[in-house]
């Protein structure tokens, strides 16, 4: 006679798992990885490797010797954090600083809360903000992008500003937007990734491609991205409409800085964002408003990371306040 298993229903399970989701995110990051290597060459390769390996190492050692739990290194979440941290730094970031960033990302932002699923803030963004505040010079010296093996690609010596940085600086000098735009790489270059910036954020096109993959595989839903991008577009659009000399075209905001990276890969992070669709709308809209406020009136040229971390802090409150619509909550008319 066979041994029968007894357990409560349901007796079948869907074929998705945490591991499949995490590696799905990694696959979705591949287009942006390729673009970063194309424009920033070996510098990007080094940053990606150092960050990923360091993150996985810290995850492994903390899980083994401090938490003393079963190994979690294979679940893919440390790798995702590692790649995302790398995406958030310039290609010439010294390795030793990057390792400190990886330590903050994994040890402080993730493992100290208990590991996967427990952290309130997006680990890679915590790592990024830590580096930005601790090493502002290294974090804002941007190698100029140049096609692979063309000229100075391997040396990383020539640096230039990001479009957002340039915009903020020049506006501060009293110049108008149309004048400053003459010095920008142009929308097509910005969309493809031919602009200064962190290695993973430069190409909106590659990030959107990865996002489409995640949408098709249902790793993310469209609610947060639509709310976030829509808010940024409408908010900056209103400002542009009011005064095009002081405020830049909303399309510029969409294709520059870390917006696409933040929208699709950080604001959709399951662990640190609301669980209900209603909550996702609030989260996306809130992050959009904060991003625009910081970009336009804040001290930093870019506000995506701060905006998402601030909204992360609101997530428990959003989960509490914005419940899904209960069945039978309001009796619909027949």
């Amino acid at each position: 006679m066979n041994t029968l298993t007894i357990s409560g229903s349901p007796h079948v399970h869907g074929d998705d798992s945490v591991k499949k989701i995490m590696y799905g995110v990694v696959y979705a990051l591949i287009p942006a990885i390729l673009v970063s290597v194309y424009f920033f060459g070996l510098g990007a390769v080094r940053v990606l490797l150092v960050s990923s390996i360091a993150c996985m190492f810290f995850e492994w050692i903390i899980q083994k010797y401090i938490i003393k739990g079963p190994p979690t290194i294979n679940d893919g979440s440390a790798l995702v954090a590692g790649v995302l941290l790398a995406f958030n730094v310039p290609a010439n970031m010294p390795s030793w600083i990057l390792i400190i960033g990886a330590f903050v990302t994994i040890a402080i932002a993730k493992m100290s809360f208990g590991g996967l699923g427990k952290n309130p803030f997006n680990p890679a963004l915590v790592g990024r903000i830590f580096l930005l505040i601790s090493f502002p010079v290294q974090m804002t010296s941007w190698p100029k992008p140049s096609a692979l093996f063309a000229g100075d690609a391997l040396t990383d010596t020539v640096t230039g500003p990001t479009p957002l940085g340039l915009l903020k600086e020049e506006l501060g000098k009293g110049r108008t937007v149309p004048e400053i735009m003459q010095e920008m790489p142009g929308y097509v270059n910005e969309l493809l990734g031919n602009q200064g910036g962190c290695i993973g954020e430069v190409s909106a096109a590659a990030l959107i491609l990865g996002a489409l993959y995640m949408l098709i595989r249902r790793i993310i839903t469209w609610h947060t991205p639509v709310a976030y991008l829509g808010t940024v577009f409408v908010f900056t659009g209103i400002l542009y409409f009011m005064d095009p000399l002081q405020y830049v075209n909303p399309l510029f905001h969409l294709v520059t800085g870390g917006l696409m990276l933040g929208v699709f890969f950080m604001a959709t992070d399951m662990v640190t964002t609301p669980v209900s669709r209603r909550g996702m709308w609030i989260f996306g809209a809130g992050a959009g408003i904060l991003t625009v406020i910081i970009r336009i009136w804040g001290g930093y040229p870019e506000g995506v990371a701060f905006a998402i971390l601030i909204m992360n802090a609101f997530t428990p409150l959003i989960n509490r306040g914005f419940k899904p619509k209960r069945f039978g909550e309001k009796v619909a008319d027949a």
Partner: protein
Amino acid sequence: MGGVHPPENKISAGQKIIALDPPEQALILLNQNLGAPSKPLVKKGDEVKAGQLIARGEAFISSNIHSSVSGKVLKIDSVMDASGYKRPAVIIQVKGDEWEESIDRSKGVVKQISLSQKEIIEKIKENGIVGLGGATFPSHVKLMVPEGKKAEVLLVNGVECEPYLTSDHQLMLSKGEELLVGTSVLMKGLGVDKAYIGIENNKPDAIGHLSELCRQYKGIQVVPLKVKYPQGGEKQLIKAITNREVPSGKLPVEVGAVVNNVGTVFAVYEAVQKNKPLFERVVTVTGKSVKKPSNFLARIGTPVSMLIDQAGGLPENAGKIISGGPMMGKALLSVDTPVVKGTSGILIIDEAHARRVPLMPCIRCGRCVDVCPMGLEPILLAQLSEHEMWDKAEDQKIMDCIECGSCHYTCPAGRPLLDYVRLGKNKVGQRIRNRGK
């Protein structure tokens, strides 16, 4: 709202219903309905016939139980039910197959409804009809609309959204005429002039067949429904057909609807038009390694082991035997457990798939919230139960959970969400009952 799409696996879909012989020994449990158990009327040594009343439902929510076989009562003893509890049952040694003479065993369909509304309800009660969709709520109680409420429409549930199960499907194909007469009987019993038969789009043959037949029946209409689990949940079906939502904690009649499963409707037809008590039902026996997946017409009290034998025997690699479907069924402790009125199927799962997937930490992906057909937050309810925060669980509508299992099915971390919610419902339910005292 919500829902999941588990693989349908309707392996036995094409199998015509085969009537099985009575078992050698029938084990007829005395608690076959939601509500109070029935009181036995026979004792050791009594001779009984198929269709003879052997236990009476005395409480308001209870039902009569009839012998499903002819023979001699061996004893009244405890038998393991599908939940693994030992419950009293009448055990009958079968001899021949003699039926009560009052049962009309002729082949023809009796279309003329001669009984009055009151007599119909009485007949349904007398013949021990309960909801055969699985909940086994006594059917006559459903027809007695509470004071101040009004039934407007009868819904017949032919959705069969549980994967694997095909008993309702086959019933719709082979007993279409009877089902429509049964529907008319229930309409009269309820005093409504409109009935809808809801069927999922994955059963186009049943939709076509019944749509064709119902032209001759006034007020009955077939409604094809989107394929989605749990489309056949009572509240989900009402929503899908009438666009009305039953308010939290209320009965369907609150929005003017009464729902009956097709199996129940067929039993009602037999009870009212043929004077036949409910003592047999269609049971799907299936599974990926089962040699002959089948739909059997089995006597109540037939041991599950006999059904499995008739379907080609227990597969070598059997790892779990489920009474019901894979989403809501119960894992059996023993193959000696008998078929009861609520047994819709026996599903055998391979060893490789019998165990749950490995447990991971919750990543707060919110998929359980997305798929919950009741708009609840399973992860929150599970956490509240885990921490024994019963008041909060009640505030978060834990009692609205219909236990469909979509949350656990979809959870990428394999969290046992429904286990915790069931625990919470149990505790919160107790507290609500104690408050009433």
